[in-house]
C-alpha cells in the first residue's frame, strides 16, 4: 500500500462526518456544467429559432454547418492559429520553467510576470498589437494574432510545465551536473524527459484556450481568415439562429475531447509516478 492510498483512505474515513462539504462540491460541479447542458440541446431544435426548450429534435442545424464552406474554413483557421500559438507558448513556457527553476530567488520575483496575461486587459493588448503591426507592415497577416494568442496561452503552458518542474527533485539536475553533463545535456536527457507529460498537457490546454479566444481574434483576424469564435461572435451579434448553437455544440464536443485527452495524459502520468 502506498502512502497516498493510506492518506486517501484516512480522508475517506473523515468523509462520513462531512457530507456538507462534499455536497457543496457536487453542487458547484453541476453549476459549471449547466450552461453547457442548455446550449447543446437547443442546437438540436427542428424549428427556426434558438429557444429553450428546443422545438423537436433534428440534425438540421448540424447539417447546415457543413453545407456551406465558410464554417469549415473558420474551423480550419482556428485550428491552425491555436495549434501554432499553443506550440509557441509551450516552447516558451517550457524554457521559462526550466530557466526560472535555476534562479529560484530571482524566479520568485519573475514568476508573477507569467500571471500578467491572465489579468491583461485583452482589448488593450489587442489594440497594442494592432498598433505595433502597422509600422511592421504585418497588419494584414496572421502574425499579430498568433503572437497575441501565444502570449495569452503562455500562463497556462508555463504553469503546467512549472508545476511538473516543481515536483522534480532538484537533486537530479545537481547529480547530472556533478557527473559532467553540460546544462544542455541535463535539460535534454534528464529534465525534458521527466516533463514530457506536463508538456503534452500544457499544449492541449493552451490549444483549447486559444481555440476559444474571441477578443484578439476579432481585432486581429485578417479579412477572410477569421477564426471560428470570431465568426460565431459576428453572427451572434447579428441574429441568434440555432446554427450558432450547433456550432457551439461542436466546439463543446471538441473541448470535451481535449479535456479527456488531458485527463488521460494526467492519469497515465500519475500511474507512472506511482509504480
Amino acid at each position: 500500500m502506498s502512502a497516498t492510498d493510506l492518506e486517501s483512505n484516512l480522508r475517506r474515513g473523515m468523509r462520513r462526518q462531512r457530507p456538507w462539504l462534499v455536497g457543496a462540491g457536487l453542487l458547484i460541479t453541476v453549476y459549471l456544467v449547466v450552461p453547457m447542458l442548455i446550449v447543446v440541446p437547443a442546437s438540436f431544435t427542428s424549428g427556426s429559432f434558438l429557444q429553450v426548450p428546443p422545438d423537436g429534435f433534428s440534425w438540421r442545424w448540424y447539417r447546415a454547418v457543413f453545407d456551406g464552406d465558410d464554417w469549415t474554413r473558420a474551423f480550419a483557421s482556428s485550428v491552425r492559429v491555436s495549434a501554432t500559438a499553443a506550440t509557441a507558448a509551450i516552447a516558451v513556457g517550457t524554457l521559462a520553467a526550466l530557466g526560472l527553476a535555476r534562479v529560484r530567488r530571482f524566479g520568485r520575483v519573475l514568476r508573477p510576470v507569467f500571471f500578467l496575461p491572465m489579468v491583461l486587459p485583452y482589448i488593450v493588448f489587442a489594440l497594442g498589437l494592432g498598433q505595433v503591426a502597422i509600422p511592421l507592415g504585418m497588419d494584414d497577416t496572421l502574425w499579430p494574432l498568433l503572437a497575441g494568442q501565444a502570449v495569452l496561452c503562455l500562463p497556462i503552458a508555463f504553469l503546467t510545465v512549472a508545476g511538473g518542474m516543481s515536483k522534480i527533485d532538484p537533486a537530479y539536475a545537481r547529480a547530472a551536473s556533478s557527473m559532467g553533463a553540460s546544462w544542455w545535456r541535463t535539460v535534454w536527457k534528464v529534465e525534458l524527459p521527466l516533463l514530457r507529460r506536463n508538456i503534452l498537457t500544457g499544449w492541449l490546454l493552451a490549444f483549447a484556450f486559444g481555440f476559444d479566444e474571441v477578443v484578439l481574434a476579432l481585432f486581429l483576424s485578417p479579412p477572410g481568415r477569421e477564426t471560428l469564435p470570431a465568426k460565431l461572435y459576428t453572427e451572434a451579434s447579428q441574429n441568434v439562429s440555432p446554427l450558432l448553437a450547433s456550432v457551439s455544440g461542436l466546439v463543446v464536443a471538441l473541448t470535451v475531447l481535449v479535456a479527456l485527452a488531458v485527463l488521460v495524459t494526467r492519469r497515465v502520468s500519475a500511474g507512472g509516478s506511482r509504480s
Partner: protein
Amino acid sequence: MSLDVEIKDLSLSIGGTRILTDVNLRVPQGSFVTLLGPSGSGKSTTLNVLAGFLTPDRGQVLFGGQDVKDLPPGARQLGIVFQNYAIFPHMTVGENVRFPLVAQRIGTDHGKRVADMLELVKLGGFEKRRASTLSGGQLQRVALARALAARPQVLLLDEPLSALDKQLREAMQSELKAIQREVGVTTISVTHDQAEALSMSDLVVVMNGGRVEQAGTAEEMYCRPGTEFLARFLGEVNLLPVAPDGSCRPLDVRATDATGRLLVIRPEDLRIGRTDGPGFDATVTDVQFQGGTLRLEVSVPDSPLPLVVRSSYAGYGSVPRTGEKVRLSHDFSFLHFVDPAA
C-alpha cells in the same frame, strides 16, 4: 587515481548568516572521512562546497594540492551519492550508470564498465531494470555504481544510508566500507548517525556551529574528547566536576592537577554489583532494557545528578529493579578531563 583533499580556512555566509567559519580539514589519499555533527553544524554545507555547488567566501579547496575553487562540479572528477540517490527515474539502471561515462566522454567500452560497476555493487545483470522497480537498498547500490563509474578521484556521500531501514543500514555499512577499500577512492561522507560515523570511518570530523570541533579516529574521539560538547555529543557520558581539593566525589579519585575540570566517565566504565561487593553505595532510579545492554540511572549520596551506568545484560545476574540498593565500582585504565563549556 585517488587524491588527498584539503580544506583551508574555509568561510561561507549565506544571506548574511555565517554558516562556516575557518574550517580546516585534511583527508589523506584513499581514506574514509566522516563529517558528523548536529543539524545546522555546517557539515552538509561543507560537502556542498567540496562538490562545487556552493562557492565559499574565503579559503581554499585543494584536490591533490590543486585549488578547485573555480572548477564547476562536473570538472572536479567527483562521484557523489545523494541523500535520496537521485537515480534518474526515466532511465534503466544501465543508462544511469552509463550517464557519467557518456557525459564526460570517458573510454569507449561503456557496456563493459557498466557491467563491472554493477558487479562491484552486487547488481550484476540489472542493466535493463527500470529504476522505478528497485528497492531502497538497490537504489543505494545503483547510486554508488554510478558515482564510481567514471573513476572519480574523490567520492562524496551525503547521508548515504539514512533512507534505509535499520537492518539494511547495518548490512550496507560493512559493504560500503569494503567497496570503498577495494576501489581505494578518497571518500568524504556526511552523516548525523553516530554509529555509522564511528564504525565506518578512518577519521571522524565533528563539526559544531560551523566550525570543526575535533578530528581524529573514532576511538580517540570517544575516549579522549577535547571539549565538553564532544564528550556529550558522542555517546552518553557522566561528567564529574573535580573539587578544589582534587577529589572527585563519589569516586575515590584524586586529581589535584585538574581542579575545576570535568572527569569524563563513560557509562560502561562503571560496574554495578551486589551490595556486598566493592565500591560505594548507590540506589537504582531508572532501568532501561536496551537489548543486550542495560542502561541504569543510579543516584549517589554525594552527587547532585544521577550517574548513568551501562552494563551487559548478563553481568549482574538478574535485572536490578528501580529502588534497589547496589554497589557501584569503576574500572578505567586512565583518567581523562575536559574543560567545562563556557
